[in-house]
């Protein structure tokens, strides 16, 4: 067992474990914390795959932003210690059936597939290359999505303020 392998197993195991906990734990605040663990573990996976920048964004945006947002809203809408209702049996059965069916059909289809890796020379993952591509207008340039995201965020911002603001009436 080599180092990377051990790390991978730990990360994969905790991803699955904590995601299950996050889904099935009936104490909502704990569920949110488990979600945080999942997100961190996934950041670890990204790091393992050499995408350090992405891992950092994952930590900042997800762990730092979204989970905090979720926790805040939990505090706003529920009692901290309140337990969620247990899922209805029918619902649980239907959901697990669908999920198992989905896992089955996906894995049964994906696993036999022989992926064909590209033969082109590997592009080194570093901040310089990422930065260049992010703000490039040519082939493999991502400046347009980058700009469009900003409009999305602007629209979301204005809309959210409008919706969340209490009406004066």
């Amino acid at each position, binding site marked *: 067992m080599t180092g990377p392998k051990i790390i991978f197993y730990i990360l994969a195991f905790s991803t699955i474990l904590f995601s299950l906990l996050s889904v099935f734990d009936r104490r909502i605040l704990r569920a949110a914390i488990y979600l945080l663990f999942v997100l961190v573990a996934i950041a670890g996976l990204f790091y393992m795959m050499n995408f350090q920048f992405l891992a950092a964004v994952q930590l900042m945006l997800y762990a730092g932003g979204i989970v905090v947002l979720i926790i805040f809203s939990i505090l706003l809408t529920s009692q901290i210690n309140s337990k969620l209702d247990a899922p209805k049996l029918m619902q649980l059965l239907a959901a697990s059936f669908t999920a198992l069916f989905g896992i089955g059909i996906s894995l049964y289809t994906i696993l036999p597939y022989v992926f*064909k890796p*590209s033969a082109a020379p590997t592009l080194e993952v570093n901040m310089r290359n990422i930065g260049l591509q992010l703000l490039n207008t040519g082939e493999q340039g991502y400046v*347009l999505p980058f700009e469009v995201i900003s409009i999305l965020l602007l629209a979301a911002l204005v*809309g959210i303020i409008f919706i969340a603001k209490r009406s004066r009436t």
Partner: protein
Amino acid sequence: MNWDTLYILRQEILLTVLILIQLIGDLSEDEKRSRIIHVTLSSFLLFTLVGFLPGEPASLFGGMYVSDDLRTLLKNILSISTLIILLQSSSWLQQPSNQTKIGAFYLSLFSTLMGMYFMIAAGNFLMLYLGLELATLPLTLLAAFDKQLRRSAEAGVKLLMSSAVSSAILLFGLSLIYGVYGTFYFTELSVLNDSSYLSILALIFFISGLAFKLSLVPFHLWTADVYEGAPLSVTSYFSVVSKGAALFTLMLVLFRVFALQHATWTLALYILAISTMTVGNLFALRQKNMKRFLAFSSITQAGFMMLGFMNVGSLGMTTLVYFMLIYALSNLAIFGVLSMVSNATGKESMDDFNGFYKTNPGLSLIMLVSLFSLAGIPPVAGFFGKFFLFTAAASSGMYILVLIAVLNATISLYYYLLVVKAMFINTNDTPIPTLHTTSYEKAAFVLCLMGIAGIGFMSSLYDYIQGLM
């Protein structure tokens, strides 16, 4: 970056300017707010016209953004529809209780339109996905725009949650497409062919995401609830512009990018077409609320649209665009009348339309023509749209599908006539009072009616669309 690039991007840039105007306009004092409506309407008219300027085919940002005559036409169809909706919504926004909404409403609306533009102009799945989200997320906020109403809040959250799941599935499909083909660029994808099971699975996941937006059965369940809960202008935006963008995107991707895999997707859409037409019809039969009624009617119509996908050639695409244009105008006319009634009286039930002809003969005639168009009765345009769709499917030898479609068209005729019956025949002790039509609304109706009456006979338009394929 040069002037040519700016010219090609003129619609998107102008739209951004319109969004910024709203940000500034929102700062103004409350009494002067309604002026923004006039400013916005006139600048949007200008924007619509700018879309009709001639342009050259171009590919920008290394193929992320593609522009050609077909895509410009599709965008123009969307902007004309949006223009009509804006004209129709003006009196709703002018109500005192809605004054504070104006800025946020326009801003969200324009951003979704921008998202739809990018869906159509995308040359890369990244842009397509981004456009899709830009078109969906602010729309969920718009659905929840009637802040004083519980049902509006419910509509917003229902739409958001279900569309988030659908886009997650779409993304899963995209990730598998990436795994199989190794690229997101349409130009590269269109020459690759992989008939493995995995690529089929990925394609199905991807199609389901757009099928959700098109509200094909069984991805349609959100539709009626959201249509009913959302403000009327937003509902009509859903049923026309949002649906149109999804249809166009699906069309461009399937015909242009996955043309080689057509055996898979025609079969998938074949199944969806049958279930959509039938289930949509069955639900529409029992509706008493006009918004829900139109929701299911639009589901059925989406099922008919799937017939256009059965012909994998220029015929299929042409009929799709042609049908969508006709569908948009017919639906908008109905929504126009509906929103006038709802604004004045708050009534939305079919029974409230009893005796409508007595008090509002003009409006009921508009409804009549538009309903006939949706039902596909000649000589109004809807008939031609449907006929061409049937032709497209029949040309591929799918007679069983055409048979089912024609049967469903007959059933749909029945419930469209129910509305006609309510308006013209049923009597009512408390009919809707005679409504005043503002000049904006008149303009909107004129646009719709011209289309409904004329498009069926404009063979030059058909030839033009066919020439673009």
